[in-house]
């Protein structure tokens, strides 16, 4: 293949990374924005989503002979709420007891990271396990070629995508629109935004702030799990898979302006596409080195993020 089709393929892979990343990072940004804490265990909620998706779909297939489509829909409906319950339990047992102190929360969530990861290792095992996609039609893509002095559409070999990959992008966009509607146009969203702006004032107006915190922590985890359920038919579930999404989400949330969900989504698209293109054409390790160093520099010289306005923090 030539450069053009390669680039389009890279951008397509990048959009899938961007879509999943936007969901995961939006969860992290929501938690940071409202609870004002950094959840280092966020990547493990992503991993839990993927592992639960595998568990749900294989259990259904073995017990009732359900096809991949039913298994996938069940995973989509059950894995995010289950992950949210784990997160809410962690919030009640740990975060609330240390009063959401920013530094102690980081130490405690590092602990939570190891607990979730190692508990998964003990129960799920060290193998990577695949989940079958519900549908996976191959879609070949055309590319203009010069034939006998005039342009015509050709179908280069290996140039194409699958229906499932396109579905991932559409589904992620739909969820993000839903999240935006929830935050902007519902009473619950209003309560969440009020808590974000001034927790003492919100409490004075009778908003149950601790319950809002638990809910937001659960919602953040559910978004990460949802991203994982969507990507697991492409990527396989593994107990160590939480590391990369955590790092990338950190990068995205920092570039997008800490805590702003809108900026986070823009940054996710940017980072996802760059990641797709860079990892096709350059060494993946070099790309990661540059990205991590860049993020550190952004925090050092522009703590409000590239797109963020100067804020209280």
């Amino acid at each position, binding site marked *: 293949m030539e450069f053009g089709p390669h680039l389009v393929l890279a951008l397509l892979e990048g959009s899938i990374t961007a879509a999943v990343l936007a969901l995961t990072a939006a969860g992290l940004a929501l938690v940071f924005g409202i609870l004002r804490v*950094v959840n280092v265990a966020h990547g493990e909620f992503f991993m839990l989503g993927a592992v639960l998706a595998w568990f749900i779909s294989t259990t259904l297939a073995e017990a009732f002979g359900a096809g991949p489509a039913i298994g996938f829909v069940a995973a989509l409906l059950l894995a995010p709420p289950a992950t949210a319950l784990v997160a809410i339990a962690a919030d009640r047992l*740990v975060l609330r*007891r*240390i009063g959401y102190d*920013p*530094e*102690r929360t*980081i*130490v*405690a969530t*590092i*602990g*939570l*990271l*190891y*607990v*979730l*990861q*190692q*508990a998964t*290792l*003990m129960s799920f095992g*060290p193998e990577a396990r695949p989940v079958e996609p519900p549908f996976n039609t191959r879609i070949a893509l055309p590319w203009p070629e010069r034939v006998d002095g005039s342009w015509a559409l050709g179908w280069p070999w290996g140039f194409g995508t699958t229906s499932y990959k396109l579905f991932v992008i559409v589904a992620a966009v739909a969820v993000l629109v839903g999240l935006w509607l929830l935050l902007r146009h519902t009473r619950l969203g209003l309560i969440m935004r009020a808590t974000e702006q001034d927790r003492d004032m919100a409490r004075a107006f009778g908003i149950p702030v601790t319950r809002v915190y638990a809910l937001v922590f659960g919602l953040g985890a559910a978004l990460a799990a949802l991203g994982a359920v969507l990507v697991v038919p492409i990527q396989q579930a593994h107990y160590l898979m939480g590391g990369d999404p955590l*790092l990338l989400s*950190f990068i995205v949330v*920092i570039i997008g302006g800490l805590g702003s969900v809108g900026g986070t989504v823009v940054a996710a698209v940017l980072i996802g596409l760059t990641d797709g293109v860079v990892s096709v054409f350059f*060494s993946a*390790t*070099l790309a*990661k*080195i540059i990205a*991590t*160093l860049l*993020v*550190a*520099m952004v*925090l*050092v*010289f522009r*703590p409000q993020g590239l797109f963020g306005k100067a804020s209280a923090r």
Partner: protein
Amino acid sequence: MKAWLLHLGVLALLVLAWFVLPPYHTGNLARILVLAVYAQGFNLVFGYAGLLSLGHALFFAAGLYGLGLSIQQFGLPALPAIGVALFFSAAVAAVTGYLALRTRGVAFMIVTLMFAQTGYLVVLYAGTWTRGDEGFVIARAARTLFGLDLADERIRYFAALTLFAIVFLSLAALVSSGFGRSLVAIRENEERARLLGYDVQRIKWRAIIVSGVVSGAAGAAYALLFGYAGATFASVQYSILPLLWVLLGGPGTTIGPLIGTVFMFYLVDFASEITDAYLLLVGLALIALTLFLPRGIAGELRRRGLTWLP
């Protein structure tokens, strides 16, 4: 006075340990002493200056690879290689510390984490020399200092103990000096320290450099005494471990790092015999410490009567 007696008593006990403990435990203890040096370096910044760094593996690895690579690639003898390792870790700490100190709180933690992650990735990227995750073994012939064979069990134990004693006593002197007290003043109330005319940024920067050199010395000693350098030592896990040791032993105390390292080392050693998922214990310990024992063992003892504890 009591404090100095305590320090000398601890060192005397460690000398005695060689003669009474079975070889398995003295072998462990040599490793623990080197790691406790690392924990003490971390404690200066975290326990005394109140800066929570999540990237100290960068300094440990700077010492480890500073020594390992100058022996392996440039054929330096051990003594100049130690010099290279110390200088390299000081330089890395000076540059990253200067940049990271422009931020505070959570941003400081993330920036240090990112710097360390960059260092880890560089180690992997430079796989031609570092051999990445697999690491490389430093030949026994190169591991001699003043004519002593550092691979010998007894010499290794006392070499580790000597390094530990030097760091233990000098840090104890440092934290009771004017510099150490100004660090505590900054930790307790940074605004007030600034108001009193202290150059807060400069003092913190110095603390990070000293801490980086001590951590680098631990890394260099690890490579020299145990003859191995690998990327694991640059990974996030090795930034979290000193935090865990210091939290358990007692941040801002001189004997806390040693206590924490001993306890945690044996806890992990015990757990890894039972299950592969021994890191589960590390996680549970971190959570339990933040919840129930934020001052650590030595800090709790100090609060409950032993107020003279340094």
